[in-house]
């Protein structure tokens, strides 16, 4: 008997509060295998929290999060995390390690860790994939520009060829040209690897470049979800206001 495969990532009525502040108020969302889902929403609406609850960095209070139909926390933590790669908002590169050791960090851990020379070769290959030359490998993160740090972060996220990649605000702090380059790279890499991607952003150029589907998070709930080519015609007042950056509408703008 063959049924429909479970979504790669499934949120079911997920809730999370910090003290009296309810950040997630019942998020329900499916991300099928191989799909690139972009979650948009204003600052402080819980986008990053939703992403970190999947990885267990922030534990959720209620509801369930499933990966391939299995609730998170049911599998061995190392095996679970080995399926993920993540590009952090600020890069989150380790200051004390040179670039190649940042990229190869995961490859040097665990039972199947690579030798130093193999890990370095693989790191350089990944750096080339994101458009960086081999001579960057021995520099420290502080010696790189913001755009280069994002590329190194991207190389680190894909180094172990994960099945699921998370991108947290991938273009924040970059100029429009560099943002375009990073967006294109993300799209190319996600398609090439066949990975399932979940991106958090409020940059609409990233949405159009990266997304297969878009979900709008507001007030702790998913307000709208649909294919990226339908965002202009969604008919959802929240989506419309966010898309066109209007101060007037159902989303209250703090002046």
């Amino acid at each position: 008997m063959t049924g429909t495969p479970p979504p790669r990532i499934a949120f079911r009525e997920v809730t999370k509060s910090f003290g009296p502040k309810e950040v997630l108020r019942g998020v329900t969302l499916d991300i099928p295998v191989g799909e690139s889902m972009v979650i948009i929403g204003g600052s402080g609406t819980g986008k990053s929290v939703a992403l970190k609850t999947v990885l267990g960095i922030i534990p959720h209070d209620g509801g369930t999060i499933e990966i391939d139909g299995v609730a998170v926390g049911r599998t061995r933590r190392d095996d679970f995390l080995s399926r993920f790669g993540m590009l952090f908002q600020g890069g989150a590169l380790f200051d004390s390690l040179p670039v190649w050791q940042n990229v190869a960090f995961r490859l040097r851990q665990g039972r199947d860790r690579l030798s130093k020379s193999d890990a370095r070769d693989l790191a350089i290959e990944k750096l080339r994939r994101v458009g960086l030359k081999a001579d960057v490998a021995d520099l420290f993160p502080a010696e790189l520009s913001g755009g280069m740090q994002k590329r190194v972060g991207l190389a680190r996220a894909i180094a172990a060829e994960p099945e699921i990649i998370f991108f947290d605000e991938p273009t924040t702090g970059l100029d429009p040209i560099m943002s375009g380059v990073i967006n294109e790279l993300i799209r190319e890499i996600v398609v090439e690897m066949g990975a399932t991607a979940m991106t958090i952003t409020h940059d609409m150029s990233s949405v159009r470049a990266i997304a297969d589907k878009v979900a709008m998070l507001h007030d702790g709930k998913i307000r709208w979800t649909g294919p990226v080519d339908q965002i202009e015609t969604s008919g959802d007042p929240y989506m419309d206001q966010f898309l066109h950056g209007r101060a007037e509408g159902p989303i209250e703008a703090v002046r």
Partner: protein
Amino acid sequence: MQALTQIDNFLAAIGRSVIGICAAVGRVVIFAAIAISHMVRPPFYPVEFLHQVMRIGYYSLPVVGMTALFTGGALALQIYAGGARFNAESVVPAIVAIGMVRELGPVLGGLMVAGRVSSSIAAEMGTMRVTEQIDALTTLSTNPMKYLVAPRILAATLCMPILVAVGDVIGIMGGWAVGIYRLNFSGATYIQNTIDFLQPIDIWSGLVKAAVFGFIVALMGCYHGYSSGRGAQGVGRATTNAVVSASVLILACNYALTELFFST
């Protein structure tokens, strides 16, 4: 009626403070227990441990050495001045030795290392927390408690006794130098008196204190850095709290350990 309300509020405020202190102590104890459990469970990170040995132990040698040298010298002068009142100037070598080895070596060494290492660990880990580097470690299948915290605490606990032992020798030499050049002691007699007077309990009680202080220094640095608040202000507060709490705990534990060793 108003007086009763004021008493009620006053008692409630005391209660809140006590609960807050108990909760903070509980968090530190749980943090320490988790860190210790990671020290004895694989995977281990020997390279990270050796890096911390260099940073916490080797690079603290000049600070601890200079502190011990000047303290030993000053101690010799003070004991000579005090001893002269009872015609007991000859006790200088013995009291300098026991003062340095049992008390001043570990306490001043611990306080100096607290200022140097606790602050550095808290600032480093606080920055890692704020810039999401600790979260990044988790996503890279690496437990931050095991990779960051355990090697630092282990390195500090093992390095402090060695640092203090070296500091004790330098402190006694400081007393010796003042004794022979300033107070006209015979160099050979000074050293012989020191050796004759010191007992094994003096040495190992000081080294046990040093190990405990090393543990406290790294634990406070790691705890406050790991749980640092957001932004530069959060990291600054974590750094201050690490140094202050490490210093106070060192002095409090010093009294407790001295009581423990008092009868021996």
